[in-house]
């Protein structure tokens, strides 16, 4: 047994999974090990196999910290703050070009006379979207993610400070156009709403399943263009529910207003309950 820490060096099974000696010439982290997790090893942790007798004093620390822990902690704080204010928060996610901002502009035009609304806009660059929202008469904060591919809870928490939140209102967070990364980052919202337009492929739910799994509502947008494209709405909804059986679906058009009464009713029911 390893005298440094009692990690069980010398056990044949442990030797087979031992670290290779560190390549110090490279002055780089040598990333070598990808192996199945056995959970907590009976003696010592996963790094126990790294020990060599006579290597000198080595200290092993059990850490157990979530890599997304900081984001999740900030998301919990955002959620508590929004709940405290009685605000209903939606995280709008889609590919670029699915029509999030146009949908939002029409939604706000209908909603702003009835309930308070605010918008946090996420884009890689520019404040064009926030300007479109402000032109619709609704307070908006723009976040530019720069090299980042998604909004995170910390930036949203910062943006919340700039908004005059009041009970019964609805906060729309328009995420960066990306169907991959935003699925992993909780922002503190009540629901993720995924928007898929009929000018995209109807099998997108199968190609980007994490996002459709994380969402509670899917809006099939640009439904007015259906006569001009080959998009099977029934198949699309079927694929989406294969990934997420509890997903609610509404067919809408930000241009014609089709489906908006149902969409607005869904928002207002959520805002009343918040």
């Amino acid at each position, binding site marked *: 047994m390893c005298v440094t820490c009692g990690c069980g060096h010398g056990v044949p099974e442990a030797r087979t999974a031992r*670290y*290779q000696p*560190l390549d*110090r010439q490279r*002055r*780089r*982290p*040598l*990333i*070598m*090990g*990808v*192996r*199945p*997790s*056995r959970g907590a090893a009976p003696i010592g*942790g*996963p*790094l126990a196999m*790294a020990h060599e007798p006579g*290597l*000198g*004093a*080595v*200290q*092993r*620390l*059990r*850490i*157990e*910290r*979530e*890599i*997304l*822990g*900081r*984001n999740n902690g900030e998301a919990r704080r955002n959620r508590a703050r929004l709940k405290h204010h009685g605000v209903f928060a939606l995280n709008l996610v889609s590919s670029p070009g699915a029509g999030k901002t146009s949908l939002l502009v029409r939604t706000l035009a209908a909603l702003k006379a009835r309930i308070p609304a605010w918008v946090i806009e996420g884009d890689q660059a520019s404040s064009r979207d926030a300007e479109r929202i402000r032109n619709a008469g609704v307070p908006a904060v723009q976040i530019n993610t720069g090299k*980042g*591919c*998604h909004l*995170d809870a910390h930036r949203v928490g910062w943006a919340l400070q700039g908004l005059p939140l009041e009970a019964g209102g609805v906060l729309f967070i328009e995420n960066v156009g*990306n169907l*991959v*990364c935003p*699925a*992993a*980052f909780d922002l503190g919202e009540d629901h993720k709403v995924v928007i898929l337009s009929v000018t995209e492929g109807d099998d997108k739910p199968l190609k980007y*399943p*994490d996002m459709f*799994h994380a969402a509670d509502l899917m809006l099939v947008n640009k439904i007015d263009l259906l006569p001009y494209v080959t998009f099977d709405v029934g198949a699309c909804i079927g694929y989406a529910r*294969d*990934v*997420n*059986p509890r997903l609610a679906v509404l067919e809408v058009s930000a241009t014609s207003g089709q489906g908006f009464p149902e969409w607005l009713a869904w928002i207002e029911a959520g805002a009343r309950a918040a």
Partner: protein
Amino acid sequence: MHEYFMAESVLRIVEESARAHGLNRVTGIAIEVGELAGVDREALQLALHVVLAGSIAQEACVTLLVVPGRGRCTRCGRVVALATRYDVCPACGHPGVAVTRGSELTVVEMEAG
């Protein structure tokens, strides 16, 4: 795409833990990566190469511990292996399998010398 963010988060966790224990050279890091966590292991390795360079963990051996996906069927109650988060129960065909393992994304251990 967000593996770079995750690598930065790994470094932050390692730096904080090292500081808390008065350590200034990290020689090993073990990370549990669930197969259902939506992380590309190769991309994470590449990102760690970039992010750890020049840090207190620049010489660290990093081991990714792969946690296979498992879940319990909410209809038949069987515990089953899952290749994706959305697999139907292989025993009864029910789509509602609650994930019990495989979502891990955790720095579990580090070593300093």
